[in-house]
């Protein structure tokens, strides 16, 4: 009999009911909740007179709507009402909440891991597609809709069909200036934005093993941009040392016992997958998206592609529409694209290492006079850490704005909107039409690339640009 994959092991440990011809009822260990996708779910419970089954397995915060200049001044009454509603619901249903006054508040996918709520082998859901982030710890984590949020609140379970499994083997060593963000963008550019649909992706290989937890989170975060509801990385020493001492992680002997159990989760050597993709990363260069989905992406030294050279009629038309929206012409060098905005933040790239990488570029330099640049830490904890390291001062001295935690410009539900026709170099995850504001043009990049674009006023190959200035590049 063939061995089992990480996904199959976690699945088997969570089966509550399995009947022929029906999906499996799967137990959910951790349910993360935020203000945007939960109000209708709590209302559903109220109407049916149902309690939250396990408030102790539920954890809420506020992130999407939160203003990042003064979080307590929510000028939009509809947004204010939504934030207020979460407070009322958490109180009424006894759900722990990291609200705006809490030292733990932040983007839901940043605080879960940093509080030690996210642990290997757990099943984790949230009414948010970027729940895939938590898979970096070897947890089965995926986004759900509001009906399922209500279902999990009421039952702590979900009906699930088993996904197909896809192994993405990433070997090689990253070149200077190339980051986890470039790896996942490059992968999606190569295989398309729906190659993971119907699959859970396991990321493996020496490039993944060499990554920090922050980097693995960036990769798993964007598994959904490849269509996969969940991304997974087998837990290892990097995972365990990240988790040790985190507030909700097991402590002392219990931690050591957990580590032993977590080590058993890794896919067996003879595990089989429905599909395997080999993605060498050694030749990858920093990536920049040129279109209106994350797969429309190319190396920074390249030029804007020509739709006429696309393989299918559908791709051709999609690329033409994208270039019209982005106001770009085929053949234009990526490094000729000028930006007016830079956003460093989001559940993809707002963790301490991301801010360190951006600060390394910003140190002693100045944001171009044509650019407005925002740095939005992912959580209060990240913000405190960054300030303790003096990163905020580096950003402020360079002319970046240093903001309070939240989702911010990633989806611009709060006031941090990009105006129509203007261009933003963004460390977030989606460059869809209108994502950062109606008519706004988004280019997805890594934190280092975004910081360099802020200073140069256009895209540059961050490593070459630094080398030209005669400075050493240190990959953090």
């Amino acid at each position: 009999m063939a061995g089992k994959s990480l996904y199959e092991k976690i699945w088997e440990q969570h089966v509550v009911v399995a009947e022929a011809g029906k999906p499996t009822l799967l137990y959910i260990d951790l349910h993360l909740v935020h203000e945007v996708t939960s109000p209708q779910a709590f209302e559903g419970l109220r109407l049916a007179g149902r309690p939250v089954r396990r408030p102790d397995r539920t954890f809420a915060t506020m992130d999407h709507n939160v203003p990042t200049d003064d979080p307590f001044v929510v000028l939009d009454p509809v947004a204010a009402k939504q934030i207020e509603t979460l407070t009322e619901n958490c109180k009424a249903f006894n759900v722990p909440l990291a609200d705006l006054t809490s030292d733990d508040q932040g983007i839901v996918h940043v605080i879960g891991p940093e509080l030690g709520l996210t642990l290997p082998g757990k099943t984790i859901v949230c009414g948010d597609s970027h729940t895939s982030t938590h898979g970096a710890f070897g947890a089965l984590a995926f986004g759900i809709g509001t009906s399922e949020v209500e279902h999990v609140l009421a039952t702590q379970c979900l009906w699930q069909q088993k996904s197909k499994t896809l192994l993405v083997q990433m070997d090689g060593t990253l070149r200077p200036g190339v980051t986890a963000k470039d790896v996942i963008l490059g992968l999606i550019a190569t295989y398309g934005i729906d190659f993971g649909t119907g699959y859970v992706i396991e990321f493996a290989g020496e490039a993944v093993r060499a990554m920090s937890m922050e980097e693995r989170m960036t990769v798993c975060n964007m598994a959904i941009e490849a269509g996969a509801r969940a991304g997974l990385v087998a837990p290892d020493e990097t995972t365990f040392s990240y988790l040790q001492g985190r507030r909700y992680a097991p402590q002392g002997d219990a931690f050591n016992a957990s580590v032993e159990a977590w080590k058993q989760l890794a896919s067996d050597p003879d595990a089989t997958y429905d599909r395997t993709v080999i993605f060498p990363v050694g030749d990858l260069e920093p990536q920049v998206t040129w279109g209106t989905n994350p797969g429309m992406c190319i190396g920074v030294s390249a030029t804007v592609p020509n739709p006429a050279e696309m393989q299918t009629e559908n791709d051709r038309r999609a690329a033409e529409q994208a270039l019209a929206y982005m106001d770009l012409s085929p053949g234009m060098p990526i490094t000729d694209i000028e930006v007016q905005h830079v956003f460093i933040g989001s559940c993809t790239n707002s963790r301490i290492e991301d801010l360190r990488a951006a600060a390394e570029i910003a140190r002693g330099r100045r944001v171009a006079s044509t650019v407005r640049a925002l740095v939005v830490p992912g959580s209060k904890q990240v913000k405190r850490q960054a300030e303790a390291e003096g990163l905020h001062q580096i950003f402020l001295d360079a002319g970046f704005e240093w903001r309070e935690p939240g989702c911010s410009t990633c989806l611009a539900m709060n006031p941090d909107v990009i105006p129509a026709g203007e261009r933003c170099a963004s460390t977030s995850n989606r460059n869809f039409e209108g994502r950062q504001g109606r008519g706004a043009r988004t280019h997805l990049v890594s934190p280092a690339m975004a910081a360099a674009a802020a200073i140069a006023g256009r895209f540059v190959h961050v490593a070459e640009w630094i080398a030209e200035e005669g400075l050493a590049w240190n990959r953090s």
Partner: protein
Amino acid sequence: MEPFVTHHGLVAAMDRVNVDTDAIIPKQFLKRIERSGFGQFLFNDWRFNEDGSLNPEFELNQPELQGASILLARNNFGCGSSREHAPWALADYGFRAILAPSFADIFHNNCFKNGLLAIQLPEAIIDELFAKSRAGAFHLTVDLQEQVITAGAELRIPFSVDPYRRELLLQGLDDIGVTLQHAAAIQAFENQR
């Protein structure tokens, strides 16, 4: 949930690949705490000009497609954000079924929770339906009981959906109620951990 057994309706064709949920319902409309009333914001940035007037170029604004209840779409429909506001908006606008070569997983799941029948069909059949739409507005009958799509006697397209989802849709069942029938199994699972 409103049961779905059979539905006869006008087909609106939307010839774009990778339509994401940000396009289906832009983020500024996600702040409401209600479940209803999202139809007016469906495809807002494509459907309306900046000044709020109708964009005459947009597919759904064509006079002959008013009252459409079946959406013909391209691959990877509903990709991106998990926002259930997307199926809420589609259903509230009046759509009962969506036909496409592929759907994004979370969106597909969300549709079935809201009585919106998302049917995956082979690309060649979708191409034929698009060709048919270019010849003028047309109606289809979607029969979930028999799992077949028909247009009079000339067209007959069998399809299949997951049997469990089909059952819930046919009966308009809320699956929390079904799950709570397994409360003892859930309790037993929790006890043995």
